[in-house]
């Protein structure tokens, strides 16, 4: 499985990278960690004329944590997230979700930007981006723009990125210390893409009622989704077993996952309900 022929460029700045992409009329692709792109090249599912390597864009490799939240540079790797002790407090949901990504060798190379731009509907990082209302920073020939995750993911392995645009940063909003959360996924084997996964968080008001519930699901649609109907069941109520059951049932009804060789849609819908129920229970403990 040898890749097809392509050229290779190693720009020193983001502007240079953008300019290279723009020059090939849609036939150039960014390579970041390469963990998603390389298999596609090996199978010849991707046949770009030119690969633009972000290797020298060191600034994109930073994890910046401040009052406005966590800013992940596009070239931040899974092992960088794993190794950043600050995230246990600054964004425990992110830290937990990333533990499930792939395997040791891939974690040394795979990047936030690569995963989000690849937009696999079963991948954890796009799921977290969607759940947490992430803001994507995108640089192209037309300049820099910020896009909400909900608008960024447009379909299976599809995003709003134009051929000359590079995702440079994923910005997760600030995380209050008292926030409740959970991340649960079910995969056939450790490190596999999830058959389904649920990321959730909510805050509690002074009356211990749930507010601002966010529930994201991966593996059950053509992109990561929010389970807004289940969120509506939770908001304004105190956590209870009855509420959990109601929210889970609502989640199951509100989705229509596709069937594939690994699972029928009905299984994935039931799985989301199960994971949501378990996650809510865990978050309340």
């Amino acid at each position, binding site marked *: 499985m040898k890749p097809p022929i392509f050229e290779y460029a190693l720009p020193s700045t983001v502007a240079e990278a953008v300019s290279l992409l723009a020059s090939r009329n849609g036939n150039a692709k960014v390579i970041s960690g390469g963990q998603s792109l*390389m298999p596609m090249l090996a199978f010849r599912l991707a046949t770009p004329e030119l*690969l633009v390597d972000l290797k020298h864009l060191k600034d994109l490799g930073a994890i910046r944590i401040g009052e406005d939240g966590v800013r992940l540079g596009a070239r931040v790797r899974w092992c960088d997230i794993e190794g950043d002790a600050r995230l246990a407090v600054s964004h425990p949901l992110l830290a937990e979700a990333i533990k499930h990504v792939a395997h*040791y060798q891939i974690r040394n190379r795979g990047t936030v930007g690569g995963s989000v731009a690849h937009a696999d509907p079963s991948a954890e990082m796009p799921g977290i981006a969607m759940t947490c209302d992430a803001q994507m920073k995108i640089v192209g020939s037309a300049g820099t723009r910020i896009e909400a995750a909900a608008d960024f993911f447009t379909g299976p392995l599809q995003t709003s990125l134009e051929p000359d645009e590079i995702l440079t940063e994923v910005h997760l909003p600030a995380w209050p210390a008292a926030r409740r959360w959970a991340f649960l996924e079910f995969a056939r084997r450790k*490190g596999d893409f999830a058959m389904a996964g649920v990321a959730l968080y909510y805050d509690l008001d002074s009356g211990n009622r749930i507010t601002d519930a966010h529930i994201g699901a991966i593996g059950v649609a053509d992109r990561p989704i929010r389970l807004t109907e289940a969120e509506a069941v939770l908001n304004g109520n105190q956590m209870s077993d009855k509420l959990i059951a109601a929210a889970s049932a609502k989640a199951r009804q509100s989705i229509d996952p596709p069937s594939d060789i690994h699972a029928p849609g009905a299984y994935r819908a039931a799985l989301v309900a199960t994971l949501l129920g378990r996650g809510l229970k865990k978050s309340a403990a």
Partner: protein
Amino acid sequence: MQIEFNLNGQAVSADVEPRTTLADCIRNDFGQTGTHLACEHGVCGACTVLVNGEAVRSCLLLAVQVQNDKVVTIEGLSGDELTPLQAAFRKHHALQCGFCTPGFITTAHALLSHEPDADEDRIRDVLSGNLCRCSGYVPIVEAVLEARSSYRDSGSK
């Protein structure tokens, strides 16, 4: 494209097509055939090498991407005598056909170099990125557990 990097302690250079993977470059341009190809799509781990001390899948890297980097393969982790890790593999019969073995040894070396106190769960977790069809993994885990002591004594390599 002309590339230069450090391979097993030696400065090397080659003229490669951009599409040449690091795995193929190591095997064909430099004749280091200890790194094996079993899937070429980044799942099996047989092609694992160390780049700047980190275990990576060499079939998922282009040779042109390791310009100026330090690459270590199974050959670079071997000498006239078996290393403690290699001796542990032999002692525990952690290989049968041997095809996946360089990938496991390279990965285990990286893990123990960074985490000499890794427990069994962590070892299994990390090794779950390498496929073995012969051994059933039990003896491999035993071998890596035993090899920890040599990494603790001398620290990271």
